[in-house]
């Protein structure tokens, strides 16, 4: 098997006596969607914070494309190729959708200390940002301030921003949340293709989407991974059924 793109090994994080992350290991291979599921309070958010760098792990390693990133800051990890979307949309709300994406293009080109040229006439930024917006179907909303977009459009914009980065691994935190059935369907189709560009670690509550998309699933309960396997293996796993899936399986 190929080398994993994102390789998390033996991650631990305690808050006092609470083991929020308890010896978690997850690997993400090229071309795959690896879904992370688990009940509320299982420690998914804590785990994501550690992968992104907003929280520092107590123990363990996080490797991206073979390089340790577990001791880097948020911005450095992003520059190394970790593209994330947020559970609750996190955008520059006064900027238009286009300028939000342009910021990502600018970051990828590695040149935020330029003072002379106005960005609005910089074809390098505008054209590429428009292209990313078109890919998620937001081209017509390019000039609307991000704060005025609908909930679903904000989710799409988050993905467009991630697309503008030079991403080695996507980390999508509940991209389906609040999308509605039609939106979820479109997004599911989109993500299915996106895995070809970079593998996706998908944290999601929408089980229909998870079962439709995931190549592998890891189940997180009380900070521990209790099972990892294909969709069929997870559906059949008796431990998972009692712990989490219930009627869904």
């Amino acid at each position, binding site marked *: 098997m190929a080398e994993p793109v994102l390789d998390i090994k033996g991650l631990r994080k305690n808050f006092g006596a609470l083991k929020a992350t308890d010896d978690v290991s997850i690997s993400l291979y090229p071309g795959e969607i690896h879904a992370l599921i688990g009940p509320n309070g299982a420690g998914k958010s804590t785990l994501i914070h550690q992968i*992104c760098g*907003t929280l520092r792990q107590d123990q363990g390693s996080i490797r991206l494309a073979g390089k340790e990133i577990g001791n880097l*800051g*948020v*911005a*450095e990890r*992003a*520059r190394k190729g970790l593209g*994330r979307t*947020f559970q609750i949309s*996190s*955008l*520059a*709300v*006064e*900027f*238009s959708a*286009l*300028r*939000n994406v*342009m*910021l*990502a293009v*600018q*970051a*990828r080109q590695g*040149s*935020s*200390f*330029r*003072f*002379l*040229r*106005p*960005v*609005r006439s*910089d074809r390098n*930024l505008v054209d590429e940002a428009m292209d990313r917006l078109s890919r998620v179907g937001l081209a017509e909303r390019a*000039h609307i*301030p991000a704060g005025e977009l609908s909930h679903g459009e904000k989710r799409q914009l988050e993905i467009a*921003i991630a697309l*503008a*980065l030079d991403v080695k691994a996507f980390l999508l935190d509940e991209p389906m949340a609040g999308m509605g059935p039609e939106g979820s369907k479109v997004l599911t189709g989109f993500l299915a293709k996106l895995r070809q560009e970079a593998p996706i670690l998908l944290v999601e509550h929408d089980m229909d989407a998870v079962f439709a998309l995931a190549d592998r699933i890891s189940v997180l309960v009380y900070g521990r991974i209790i099972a990892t396997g294909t969709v069929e293996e997870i559906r059949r796993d008796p431990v998972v059924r009692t712990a989490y899936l219930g009627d869904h399986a």
Partner: protein
Amino acid sequence: MISREFLINGVLALLLLAVPFIASAVGQPFTITLATRIAILALAATGLNIALGLGGLVSFGHAAFFGVGGYVAGILSSHAFSGDPMIFGFEGSKQMLLIWLTAAIVAGLLGLLIGVISLRTSGVYFIMITLAFAQMVYYFAISWPAYGGEDGLSIVVRNQFPGVNTMRPLTFFGVAYGALIVGLGLFAMIRDSRFGAALQAVRQNEVRVASVGISPLPIRLTAFVLSAMMTALAGCLYADLNRFVSPSMLSWHMSGELIVLIILGGTGRLFGPVAGAMLYVVIESALGGITERWQFFLGLILLATVLFARGGVIGLLAGKARHG
């Protein structure tokens, strides 16, 4: 398409330019001084507007940079006047261009020092730390007898600008106005650039900026230093206008005044500081003649602005800012 804000900015710029000439023609020389004061305060506030308006950094210590600019002008000028060497046999200077350059460097370094420490905090802590640094500079100036201490330092003859006679009020206004226009140009350039995009995004959502791979701290620090440098330039001109520099330029009242100018005019707007300075100086001179308590009325206007017109004068006239 020419936007409404562009037109309003043009009108304000022309108005400020026209007033001293009209005043000169009808024999009201004091009005020229008022217009010069407006231009200089607007430049100082434009400097602060880089940090506060674009970057959301509420610095309550910009008087430090304003005053440092003033003291650089005063100190260099006094040495050139008396002939006492300063350091390394350097005898000071009465050339504005050299003074400005020195002030920008000194204020830039001071801004770097203050910024490195205070930008590790945010919100009310940032406000308090910048205030604390400014107060340190203030008390340092008071307790430094070599340059006047509490009494301040006089600039006997106004410093020189190549090719013109700065002792003529109208000419000196021209220098200050020119500096303001250049300052506004720099502000607009910074705002529209890639750096400006990152800076404004940091104000709106720091996490978002970090998540695309831009570290917020260097962006903020650079903005803070640039901001300090421009405010220091205005400080040089202010010292030359009054031909006097004293610790009052460094006091926290001055820092507050600069913030008030920006809020009155429109935070983050190109001509916000200009509109704010106009309003401020007009209120000061109109009401100041009637009552010593004119700041009470300024307070009312500020209150009304914060409650009902968050975008300040420019926001009221030109509508909400749009970011393409």
